């Protein structure tokens, strides 16, 4: 199964590089430039983004002991969206010289503001989690905090200029294209170490599967780990959101699926498997974005349109043979 997965990932990368773009590229003089400057960064973005979002979802599902949890459900995406909207929509009113380059927003500022938004939401949820022991209430609280963030985004949208609004709407569709190698490098510098940190925490994550007190008695540091998990998942969600827009679906569906498909694994392997699945999902979604009869579709639309039926299919198949818990 693991080899199958690896083969699938390699296939996804190859398919993404070959198909996700114009079909008449190959054989022309420009093929080399397009491959190294447009396709490759896009493929790498897909991989990093899939890795980041699915890992974030897995951490949150473990933390909340709830397969419904995910960056988009808990409002982390909304928080990051608020941070980004501040930059895209509201920057004229809080004008700072370094906020803008000559023609667009500065990614450094974008990352910081979206990270701040995500951490703010997470901080609220974390504070609540200290007082409220019921995980279901926390998920609802996350939804509410996310709603507040989106409402503020709504206010910003209402008072913004039409062209800024258009930029923001385009951003919400999600896109893995258009990043330079430098920007992909920045994504990698943040996502890869964060992912490795998650792997290093895999043992503690395993403890989180158990009842909190049982785990604590076994040597699990509940408070420190809660803070770390929330911090790590916020970083992952915020970076992906800042660069690629609020991409939904991956964060919820992939962790749930990898827990079904690789039910025997604990977090050490599960994290890796999950990241690979997440990466290949976005790689294929990007192929579909470009692929169908010359139509170009936004990433989030493709994900919802094609991803959801696949998940439903898997759920039905497994419902017949095994129970899903």
């Amino acid at each position: 199964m693991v080899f199958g997965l690896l083969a699938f990932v390699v296939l996804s990368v190859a398919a993404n590089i070959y198909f996700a773009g114009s079909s008449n590229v190959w054989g022309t003089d420009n093929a080399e430039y397009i491959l190294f400057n447009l396709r490759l960064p896009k493929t790498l973005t897909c991989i990093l983004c899939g890795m980041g979002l699915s890992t974030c979802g897995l951490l949150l599902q473990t933390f909340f002991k709830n397969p419904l949890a995910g960056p988009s459900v808990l409002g982390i995406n909304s928080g990051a969206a608020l941070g980004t909207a501040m930059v895209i929509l509201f920057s004229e009113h809080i004008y700072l010289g370094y906020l803008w380059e000559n023609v667009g927003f500065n990614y450094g500022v974008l990352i910081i503001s979206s990270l701040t938004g995500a951490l703010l939401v997470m901080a609220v949820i974390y504070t609540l989690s200290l007082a409220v022991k019921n995980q279901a209430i926390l998920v609802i609280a996350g939804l509410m905090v996310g709603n507040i963030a989106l409402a503020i985004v709504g206010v910003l949208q209402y008072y913004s200029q039409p062209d800024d609004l258009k930029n923001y709407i385009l951003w919400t569709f999600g896109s893995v294209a258009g990043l330079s190698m430098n920007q992909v490098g920045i994504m990698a510098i943040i996502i890869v170490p964060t992912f490795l940190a998650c792997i290093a925490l895999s043992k503690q994550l395993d403890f989180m599967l158990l009842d909190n007190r049982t785990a604590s008695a076994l040597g699990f540091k509940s408070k420190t780990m809660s803070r770390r998990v929330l911090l790590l998942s916020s970083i992952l969600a915020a970076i992906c959101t800042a660069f690629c827009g609020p991409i939904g679906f991956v964060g919820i569906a992939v962790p749930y699926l990898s827990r079904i498909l690789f039910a025997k694994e604990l977090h050490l392997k599960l994290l890796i498997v999950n990241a690979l699945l997440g990466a290949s999902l976005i790689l294929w979604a990007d192929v579909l974005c470009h692929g169908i009869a010359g139509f170009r579709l936004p990433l989030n639309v493709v994900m919802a349109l094609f991803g959801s039926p696949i998940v439903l299919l898997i759920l039905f198949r497994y419902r017949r043979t095994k129970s899903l818990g």
Partner: protein
Amino acid sequence: MEIKHAHIGYTDSLFMVDNLTVKPGEILCILGNNGCGKSTLLQTMAGFLSPLKGMVVRDTHQQIAFLGSKSQSHPQLKVGQALLLAFNKHKPWYKSYSADQMAACDALLKEYNLLHKKGAYVNELSDGQMQKLWLGQALLSNPDILFLDEPTGHLDATNTAFIFMKLKHWVETENKTVVLTSHKIDWILQFSDNILLIDDNKSEQFSTGHPELVDRLNDCFSGSYHKVDFGRNQYQLQFKNKN
């Protein structure tokens, strides 16, 4: 483990434990009416809460295990994984579980008659199976002191007997300590060595052979919900047999 002049409670003191010592090889049972603070005391002893005043003295090198009454685990956790997690503490994060550890889990599942459920999700087990599973996990982690909150909550007689037999056997063979709360007074009188009775914001400690114990138990429980008829002679006879 010792408790000295400890006031127990979350924010307000519910009762005081003046002086309590638990020795290895003993089973201590905390008895009392619903809501009197049994679980709070148990959590204080396990170190999850600190006493409002006074202190709980426990050797920090001692391993503990804690089994709550409502165990909330991840809905996608499997039975086999739950058992393996007992060994998680001493495993480096980059290593998998050893063959010995897996064999130990299988042996335990077989002994507990759960082997056919190894691939099932924990949340799908019946109450009795789940309680047995968590007990097995706690024992696998090889603690020095085991805390159990209502381990036999809504179990039938067979499963209750199974759990108490296991505990008694483990305490006697390995010289370990068990502290538990329970409402199954008949079973407790039979299996535990000491009883801490919480009544009217006071706590009293009795050994199970103590002559006043049965009177006090009758006082405590009859007042609240129903009259418990303890066959005094029968139990005393049993204690004599045992000692």
